[in-house]
């Protein structure tokens, strides 16, 4: 609610945060080491062998990935989730709904997601979000600017939690 963001904007930040953390947990749980790795606890599905709704969704993701990331193949996490059509569809639809333009721009949401991934050291999601941002035009200095905020707020969060400091910052009436 600071800096002119209303409740919808705040809720969008919450949604982007929990979504990123959930995807990072999925990637870590599946032992996916990086965006370019094909190794995972469950092998990624070859889109050429997909059928029915999974084939359609992976095709959709492939089209998006080519535009948003400059990659023709769907990122490995989506291909692993493709072994469970319901899991894939629900998660991909959530990604689309949460990460597109809303009260906050898609690019601001993606930078926020990158910050969350950095804060929890989620390598796959760091690479995933950074690739999308670079494709959108972000440069090294922009990536470092996200990291700077993450770094500084890790400091402030540590101090405030360690000293159990009561918040004295209130939203405007």
């Amino acid at each position: 609610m600071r800096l002119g963001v209303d409740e919808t904007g705040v809720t969008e930040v919450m949604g982007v945060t929990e979504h990123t953390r959930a995807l990072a947990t999925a990637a870590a749980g599946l032992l996916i080491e990086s965006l370019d790795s094909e190794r995972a606890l469950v092998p990624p599905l070859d889109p050429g062998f997909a059928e029915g709704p999974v084939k359609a969704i992976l095709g959709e993701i492939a089209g998006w990935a080519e535009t948003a990331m400059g990659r023709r193949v769907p990122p490995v996490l989506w291909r692993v989730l493709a072994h469970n059509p319901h899991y894939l569809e629900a998660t991909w639809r959530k990604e689309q709904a949460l990460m597109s333009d809303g009260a906050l721009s898609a690019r601001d949401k993606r930078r926020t997601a990158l910050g969350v991934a950095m804060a929890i050291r989620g390598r796959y999601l760091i690479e995933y979000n950074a690739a999308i941002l670079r494709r959108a035009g972000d440069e090294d200095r922009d990536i470092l600017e996200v990291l700077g905020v993450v770094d500084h707020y890790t400091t402030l969060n540590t101090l405030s939690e360690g000293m159990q400091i009561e918040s004295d910052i209130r939203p405007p009436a």
Partner: protein
Amino acid sequence: MTTIRMVDPDASSDTTKEIFDAVLRREATVFGATSVSNIWRCMGHWPALLEANWARSRALMQRGRFTPLQRELIATAVSIGNACTY
């Protein structure tokens, strides 16, 4: 409950008070603060920590290409993820 007493900016040394004054000017601009927030007051017990973190705050939160809102979005998300209630 807070485990440390807050430093009174008015009872601080000249150097520390200068930093508190700068913090308050910044916080008044960003979110209408009328007094220095607790997170900075707690650092006042160790002036070197206060000075170092204020310098980093200026470098990381006040300079660069992002807007204040863009930085605040990231900061909020990181704080949510760290379960920081402050």
